[in-house]
């Protein structure tokens, strides 16, 4: 199943522990990754991702753009706002390496959720290159082929 997951490179990067140096730069990098996730959603729907900002953050503007005409996309509104909040917490506590590291780990987990949510929606909408790749894996599960644990469910 893992091979079929959307945003595989991003998810792999999120598995790594945050570095000890430059916490704010890392927090900003996580925000930029989140922007890429939403930009993927917008491009898949034929829209050009905005460069504008809402409340000072492009991520919130991208979310607003993505939710226009698709209210169900609001299910990741708070996730986006939480990412911004955690980035701001890192900005406030960047001199405390332990605390900044803890918050960065939380921010990475929230970003993972955003990627999984948007990826899942893209897959359900049959958009994105991973959706076709996932079907053979599911077929394996339902057929109970060797190595397919889902067949034992």
């Amino acid at each position, binding site marked *: *199943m893992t091979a079929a997951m959307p945003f595989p490179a991003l998810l792999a990067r999120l598995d790594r522990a945050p570095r000890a140096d430059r916490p704010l730069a890392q927090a900003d990098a996580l925000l930029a990754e989140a922007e890429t996730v939403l930009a993927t959603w917008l491009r898949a729907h034929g829209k050009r991702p905005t460069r504008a900002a809402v409340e000072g953050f492009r991520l919130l503007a991208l979310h607003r753009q993505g939710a226009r005409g698709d209210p169900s996309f609001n299910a990741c509104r708070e*996730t986006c706002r939480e990412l911004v909040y955690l980035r701001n917490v890192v900005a406030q506590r960047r001199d405390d390496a332990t605390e900044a590291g803890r918050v960065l780990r939380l921010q990475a987990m*929230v970003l993972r959720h955003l990627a999984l949510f948007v990826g899942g929606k893209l897959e359900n909408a049959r958009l994105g290159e991973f959706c076709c790749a996932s079907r053979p894996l599911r077929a394996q599960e339902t057929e109970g082929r060797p190595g397919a644990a889902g067949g034992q469910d």
Partner: protein
Amino acid sequence: MAGDLKKVAYYPGCVLEGTGHAYNRSTKEVGKVLGLDLVEVKNWNCCGAMEVKNTDPKLQTYLSARNLSIAQGMGFDTVMAPCNGCYHNLKKAEYDLKNDPASVEMNERVSTKAGHPAYRAGKVETIHAIDWLKRAVGEEELARRVTNSLKGLKVANYYGCMYTRPRHIFPEKDKGPGSESTLRPHFMDDLLAAAGAENVEYPLKTACCGGAHALSDCDTSTTLVLNLLETAEACGAEVIATNCPTCHTGLEMHQVRADKVLGRKTRVRILYFTQLIGMALGLSARKVGVPENMSDPSDVLQAKGLG
């Protein structure tokens, strides 16, 4: 609108009679021990849930409005719905009947055809089980009634997405201090803290659990739930408290599936917040339906002297 919440109309909804039975049982038991009276809405029907809403949103409005009409006919101005989906749909019906003339017209037409009075907006307030305990009892009184504190139990409060979304159908929220927040809800945290729990910071309180795809697209749900569980553990939680039977079932089911399919085992336990409050009030684990849960939290509960 609601005044005395000691006695309210109770709308359990379909799920609480099925997989969410433990939530039904624990809600009623908590009410009983706190001296609160729940009177079930007579002859209630489905709130419209997802299937009807997808087919015809106005029909869903009618179905929810019929329940409000019955509650009003029974003499209540408040109906309590513990399920996030039902709560959301009853609130949405209230909003639509207040703001959408086409919904009003359909509700009038179908109600007349069905032979019962049409519900008019503004007569009955829908509240969640969390609001009910917060407003009818409050943290101070709850803390006073605790006989078996949840002290030392680290809890991540998971509210799910429908408790606060969409914001416009919850006009009472985001009104500043004392009101519930749609961005960072805290009412369940407040109640469990009053019962002695140690709430952990949990950044995915309202994040999607993939509930709508729990069966039809289980890979999506499994990965979303796994992240909810792993994040709760990373935050130090021993237990995730839930307030929605769909989220609760999804968390339990996909915790097992994540272990089987992905080989990712998580140890965090999943309990309804009413089960935790019930045990803090001295009720046994059996009394609040813990054995009906899919996962077995008995090791954590016994270690804390609960249940």
